[in-house]
């Protein structure tokens, strides 16, 4: 009699080809039919509830399309706000600085957009909201430390607060727009979705500051510009946790 090949043979090595008592136990659980009466009643209840409210729905677009929409909202919010406030920062940056900063912004924004788009639908792949947040929170300080000089703390708070406020003021409406997009899908993990969208909204604030703010002191950019992303993401995460807890109760 041929020995049955176990699905877990890739993890079990040659032992997997032996009949396994664990497999027997699990197979018994798998093949045990549920109680017929309970199942029939459950099916009837589900059918009654669902068939009474059956309406045609249009399937949501692909993850790529949704991610593109998120990315467009991010880019529009950053550019419109940056241009409206005046692109003073963009003019003082060198070509290399511009290329590196905006390319990095685009890369992190793509990661956050894909994470947001994935969180809109069940079983859409690994969630990357926390990855996008960590990438932004660690990557940008490193990049700014490489590009800029100046660690004097004189006027640090005085010069920084307006940047933080302006960044958060851009991040908030961007976050609300992203939330509208997010609501078109069905979010299972609110915290993860909020972290992804909060990071993306914060990145819009950061991009606006890079276009607008002419202060190129490393300490200012690292502390106050990056803080916009952190504040936005953490705020979104906290609100999502609160909403989740309330809805579970």
């Amino acid at each position: 009699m041929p020995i049955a090949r176990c699905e877990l043979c890739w993890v079990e090595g040659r032992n997997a080809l032996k009949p396994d008592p664990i497999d027997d136990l699990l197979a018994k659980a798998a093949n045990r039919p549920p109680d017929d009466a309970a199942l029939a009643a459950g099916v009837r209840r589900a059918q009654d509830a669902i068939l009474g409210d059956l309406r045609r729905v249009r399937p949501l677009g692909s993850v790529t399309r949704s991610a593109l929409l998120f990315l467009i909202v991010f880019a529009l919010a950053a550019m419109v706000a940056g241009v409206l406030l005046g692109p003073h920062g963009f003019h003082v940056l060198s070509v290399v600085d511009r290329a590196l900063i905006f390319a990095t912004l685009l890369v992190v924004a793509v990661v956050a957009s894909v994470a947001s788009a994935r969180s809109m639908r069940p079983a859409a792949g690994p969630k990357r909201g926390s990855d996008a947040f960590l990438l932004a929170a660690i990557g940008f300080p490193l990049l700014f430390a490489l590009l800029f000089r100046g660690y004097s703390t004189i006027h640090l708070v005085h010069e920084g607060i307006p940047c933080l406020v302006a960044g958060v003021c851009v991040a908030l409406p961007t976050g609300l727009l992203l939330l509208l997009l997010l609501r078109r899908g069905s979010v299972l993990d609110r915290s993860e979705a909020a972290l992804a969208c909060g990071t993306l909204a914060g990145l819009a604030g950061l991009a606006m500051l890079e276009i607008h703010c002419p202060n190129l002191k490393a300490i200012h950019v690292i502390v106050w510009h990056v803080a916009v992303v952190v504040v936005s993401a953490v705020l979104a995460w906290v609100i999502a946790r609160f909403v989740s807890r309330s809805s579970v109760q």
Partner: protein
Amino acid sequence: MRPVHAGSRSKLYADRLPGTILQEPPHLSAASSRDPASLPDLESLMCGYQQADEAAARVFIERVSPVLLRYFLVQPLNRRFADDLMQETWMRIHKARHTWRRGEPVLPWIFAIARHTSLDSYRKSRRVETREIQVEVMPEPPASTSSGDTADLDTLLAALPASQREVVLLLKVSGLSVDEVARATASTAGAVRQKAHRAYRTLRTLLGRREKRVEA
């Protein structure tokens, strides 16, 4: 050999053969005593459900409910509320039905929703338990209805961390493939393999110890 149609339920089980321990559950086999090739597959039923086809929705619910109920019944924490959890999952599936796209596997999508329903239920019961007031005389617990095998399985699975337990149950009881489990748990195939490997190692150690005890 009978041809297997892509995406059909027959394929859902057939692609795990030969060698998987999972066989088509008896109640499903009984329900499908007709030629399995003539049965509509889950994907076309889901499409019909999205298009408000009542017959398709009805068959879809009949087809998926046993799988969902078993998923909840096999988890000790959810067993008591399995019926309610199945209903709650169906409500969520109904609300989220527009998020499924043709060409994507249906079962991982369903199990992702079921998994979150189960998690929310667990959180809710935890929260309620912390606010409960202990009564002086505890009521008699209901007599256990679980068989010896279920108790064995429960004892063994209780030793596993929740994430490993979930992977083993989805792989071996619900019958999903590694890629499908990865989709359902928002993880990667590598992570699923690693969890399954660790779970099997732990289970094998526990079984080995138990056998030694019995021999002694």
